[in-house]
């Protein structure tokens, strides 16, 4: 087990170099620089570029960047004239993570019960309506669902604020009321995917012999469902948590745009257009780290849930 973890961690090294190298090269191949504007005199631009080392060859800049990352420094933000990137990204990351957790909570708490109920009553009206809602759920994208929710629940009914973000220090009620609509927007499609996944794997498990055995020896339906079926049916759902987290991550990029939430995704989009190289690099590294980390976590979780899976190789 530990060997597998170590191997997976080592695997991050080539991923890191390819991902950062590719991003670095692409960003620096973009025409224009971070200090371009009509008002800034060329001499000043040159001076600024010298200060931030932008006049050196790209390879050299990459190595400088690497050595500063090795000291866990992501460098100064060029758009904000030298404030460290971390001072923007850490709060942004915190916001994105909160949004993502609420979205996953929503997705799991709606999707799993719906999938279980649909599978238990296969072919009934409950199953059909759950399946229909699920397929609509995966088909309505965030850029449609977000505005619809905003229009209905914020503009028409006035139940929730239209957009923006409130931190927990503003009070619990404003915090939660700001998070509801974006979390649903982000989680809706995922809950539909989870519902379908749960239903499919539940159906498969319910057809197994050991379920019939459990029923035959007179266990109540509830015990059979929860103890015997559910535990095995959840394995594919757990494996999906990795891609799910990745989907939440990139999905939050969309939702943050729609709801004007100061998360990491918004920094990413703005920093590309302002050629804020250190900011872009930091965001990409964090995203890749999260994806690799979550997948590793899922693999570990997988072996905990399903003891049959060995790591013989």
């Amino acid at each position, binding site marked *: 087990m530990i060997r597998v973890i170590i191997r997976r961690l080592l*695997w991050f090294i*080539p*991923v890191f170099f*390819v*991902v950062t190298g*590719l*991003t670095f090269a*692409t*960003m620096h*191949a*973009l*025409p*224009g620089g971070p200090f371009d504007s009509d008002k800034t005199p060329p001499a000043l631009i040159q001076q600024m570029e010298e200060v931030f080392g932008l006049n050196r060859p790209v390879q050299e800049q990459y190595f400088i960047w690497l050595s500063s990352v090795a000291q866990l420094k992501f460098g100064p933000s060029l758009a904000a004239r030298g404030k460290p990137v971390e001072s923007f990204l850490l709060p942004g990351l915190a916001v994105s993570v909160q949004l993502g957790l609420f979205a996953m909570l929503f997705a799991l708490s709606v999707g799993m019960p719906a999938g279980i109920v649909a599978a238990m009553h296969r072919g009934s009206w409950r199953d059909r309506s759950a399946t229909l809602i699920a*397929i*609509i759920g*995966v*088909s*309505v*994208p965030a*850029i*449609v669902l977000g*505005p*619809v929710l*905003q*229009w209905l629940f914020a*503009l028409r009914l006035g139940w929730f604020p239209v957009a923006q973000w409130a931190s927990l220090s503003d009070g619990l009620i404003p915090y939660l009321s700001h998070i509801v609509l974006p979390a649903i927007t982000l989680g809706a499609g995922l809950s539909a995917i989870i519902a379908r996944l749960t239903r499919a794997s539940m159906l498969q498990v319910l057809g197994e012999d050991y379920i019939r055995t459990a029923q035959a020896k007179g266990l109540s339906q509830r015990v059979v469902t929860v103890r015997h079926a559910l535990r095995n049916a959840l394995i594919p759902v757990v494996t999906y948590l990795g891609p799910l987290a*990745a989907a939440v*991550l*990139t999905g939050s*990029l*969309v939702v943050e*745009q*729609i709801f004007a939430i100061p998360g990491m995704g918004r920094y*990413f*989009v703005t920093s*590309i*257009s302002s050629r804020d190289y250190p900011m872009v690099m930091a*965001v*990409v590294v964090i*995203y*890749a780290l999260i*994806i*690799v980390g979550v997948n590793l976590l899922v693999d570990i979780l997988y072996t905990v849930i399903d003891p049959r899976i060995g790591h013989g190789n």
Partner: protein
Amino acid sequence: MATSTAPAPVLASPARRSRTLLFDVVMRLVKDPFVVICVLYLAALIVVAIFPSTFAPLSYEETNFPDKLAPPMSYATTPKLEGFRYIMGADRLGRDIFSRLIYGTRVSIAVAFLGAGISFAIGLTYGLVAGYSPAKVDNMMMRIVDIIYAYPTLILIILLQVFLTSLAQQPAESLGALQTLLVTLDTRSGGLFFVFVAIGAVSWLNMARLTRGQTLHYREQEFVQAAELVGANNRRIMWRHLLPNIIGTCIVAETLAIPAYIYTEAFLSFIGLGVQPPMPSWGSMIADGYGALRSAPHIIFFPALALSLTMLAFNFLGDAIRDAMDPKLRDR
């Protein structure tokens, strides 16, 4: 795809069996009224996308400022359009939303088919070759996929798209011959070409993984060994023996992946990185309407509906094909 016209007697029987399977699947599909509706809807979209000017009453860029934000079904107030009715209303610049919606179909349908085409052309071949190659080659090929995979898809697409569009904004004389060709293609297509490139660059990864997994499953089976024994070469085994077995799964996966391509384009256009105005796309129309959500919700309504319905149709169709091909569900 390599198809040979001279059927070897040994190979004739699997080919015939796969045709009856296909026949079965189609028969099962046409029985479902929802499937028929989806197919008809998508077919209508394709026709509209190919001949937009036949269906659109006005051009997509014609602005009539007096009619700006006109509600649906209202008559035009501009003298030259006397008696014209805006079926879906007009947007902030007084452009006919119905016409723009029709031209926007072109973008979504093109992205759907191009994404799928690239995904099939590269992903399928890549996966087949990797899966049928010796373990070392397979490993190396799949590690490459893994590395690109660790890159968040949307971020890679955004980055590529920014890179490509800024290429288009450079002065023409600083570009090489190839770059000039690409930029010309892009401006001719209203920014669509680079969207294709960016989406195509990542769309094949999933397909490659799926195909490779399927190939690994089938390559150990008796019919492949038999083909190897009679001396069929690698190419023949891959295209004539392995591909027919895995193509069904791949088609289902691809149909279910198409909504993602459509959505990616819509999102890129939504944040202003997709097609270039005035070329309409459902995504950019949603962005237009989003700004007027409070005062004129009808602007966002129609493109949002079109986008959702189209994604729904592809999802539904993919599901239906999968169910129809599943032998376990055959005797429902």
